[in-house]
């Protein structure tokens, strides 16, 4: 391969592989005869993949766009309607996008909430407390249990792991009634223990974290042990920082579950009920509340969507290890 023409240039060793990716383009550096960088040549990334036809790509993007519109429609509709003044809400035929946006519905929501028998801040506190508390318990307990279940050798490990995997296959809500019986046996009904304690034993959470710990190299743990680190120290200083994507993912799923939790069979007292329940009661008052209930839907959506946005890359990394192993 020796040639001195302008377009095939011998590259200095080591610079040949330097290819950067920018958006859908791959930047290929071009060098002159002495190996200095002249310019970047952009090359489309998608075209580089094997077994892809241009027609197929176009169809695919079109289909994704249409599906995206269908998925986004109810949410756009909720946001738009929450901004509509009253007369625009009952326009016939209805228009999808608001013409004269107003925040009146959001103001009304706060007025209604501050006039309720149990103050709005109490519902908000309840939901925040349960969401944060239960999420914390889930993460800590699942991470702690995942470490020995994945890395220790002890009798019964296999059977415990298999049982946990088995329970993923139950339709979990069916256990609700028996849980009610057990909790009333403990005298926990109508207290927060009903919501917080079960968070310690979530098999879904354990499964997620366990899959991630399985990938963690044993050699690192062994090296730490030889250096004299105890198991607690290994767990806290080595494993937990490295499992960040896993517990961030768990936080997103958990926040989604607890934040959206409405009425439960375990809680009767009004002052212990959740924000979602309280807001649902307003929406249930009928069509006169249509604008306000849209505002509620928008408000309730913000927290889970934000947590997801912040942690998206972690989630993908974690779910990659969530597969079932035989």
């Amino acid at each position, binding site marked *: 391969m020796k040639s001195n023409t302008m377009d095939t240039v011998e590259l200095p060793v080591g610079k040949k592989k330097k290819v950067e990716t920018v*958006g859908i383009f791959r930047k290929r550096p071009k060098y002159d005869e002495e190996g200095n960088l002249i310019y970047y040549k952009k090359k489309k990334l998608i075209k580089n*993949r094997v077994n892809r036809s241009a027609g197929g790509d176009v169809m695919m993007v079109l289909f994704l766009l249409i599906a995206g519109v269908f998925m986004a429609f109810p*949410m756009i509709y909720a946001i738009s309607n929450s901004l509509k003044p009253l007369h625009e809400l009952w326009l016939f035929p209805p228009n999808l996008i608001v013409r004269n946006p107003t925040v009146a519905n959001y103001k009304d929501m706060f007025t209604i909430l501050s006039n309720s028998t149990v103050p709005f801040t109490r519902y908000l506190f309840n939901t925040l407390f349960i969401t944060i508390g239960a999420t914390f318990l889930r993460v800590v307990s699942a991470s702690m249990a995942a470490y020995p279940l994945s890395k220790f050798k002890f009798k019964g490990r296999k059977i415990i792991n298999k049982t946990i995997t088995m329970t*993923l296959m139950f339709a979990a809500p069916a256990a609700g009634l028996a849980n009610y*019986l057990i909790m009333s046996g403990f005298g926990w009904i109508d207290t927060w223990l009903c919501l917080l304690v079960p968070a310690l*034993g979530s098999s879904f959470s354990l499964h997620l974290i366990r899959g991630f710990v399985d990938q963690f190299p044993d050699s690192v743990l062994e090296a730490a042990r030889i250096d004299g680190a105890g198991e607690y120290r290994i767990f806290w200083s080595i494993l937990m920082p490295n499992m960040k994507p896993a517990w961030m993912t768990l936080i997103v799923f958990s926040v989604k579950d607890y934040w959206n939790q409405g009425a439960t*069979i375990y809680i009767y007292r009004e002052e212990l009920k959740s924000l979602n329940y309280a807001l649902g009661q307003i929406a249930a008052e009928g069509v006169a509340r249509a604008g306000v209930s849209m505002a509620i839907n928008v408000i309730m959506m913000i927290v889970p969507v934000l947590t997801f946005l912040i942690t*998206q890359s972690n989630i993908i*990394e974690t779910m990659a290890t969530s597969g079932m192993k035989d």
Partner: protein
Amino acid sequence: MKNNVKSASLKKANRSRAMSLVVFLGPFLLVFFVFTILPVLVSILVSLTNFNMLEMPGFVGLDNYAKLFLNDSVFTTAIQNTMIISVITGPVGYLLCFGFAWLVNEIPPKPRAFMTLLFYAPSLSGGMSAVWALLFSNDSVGYINAWLQEFDIISEPIRWTVDTDYMMPVCIIIILWQSLGTTFLTFIAGLQTVNRSLYEAGAVDGIKNRWQELYFITLPEMRGQLMFGAILAITGAFGVDGIITGIFGFPTQNYALHTIMHHLHDYGNVRYEMGYACAIATLLFLISIIANRVVQFLLDRVGK
């Protein structure tokens, strides 16, 4: 002497390791047993009694089950509805999850992140029943009715949430709308971990298009994620109730959308006939395990 010291410290290390095992595993296992394993056993036991929270329970054998299958026409309806909903929303939702994950994975990273959020947002938002209730409102105030009337497709508003002809399709659309949940994320992650060099090797070995690539390389490579996704889809489909109650009320008109979970709720938390309700729960456990086993068996054969 040196040996002795070594074995003594080793023993100490082993003992502290055993201690740490208890500390790490104890809380999880205890709660897992009490609130996940015990409920199954309690359900089975109580299902053999006539427990009603007030009187001492008496043993009635399989009477509850006999009554469920022979004397309870609402339960038969509930089984039918649950089966229709899960046979449609389970597999279709699962395929949607995979299809969209596959398509989203084909596009470049930045739009991919955006599309992922867009598709996942419905299941993050917890149902948005108020939006659906207004879209499918029974009078001409409802947006769907208004538009259909505007374009002269119908003359009278359709009573979406109480007309038994329309309730099931509407319910299925709404469930499918928010079916791109955890399963969807699992699949995207699975697709991203498939070794890229396998595709190039496959192209050399004679794989001609993206469909062959999908069946012979991608699917077998992500079998673990496919199974996990299937479990989530099945348990989700059998446990459906809240979203129906939010939009169609409880009980639904003519029991047209009465599911097994609704029946369980009706007898357990409304009538307090715990024995009977626990028989329903036990059956639901059984059905979901059988469905999972069947699906796992089928998935095991993909790409082989």
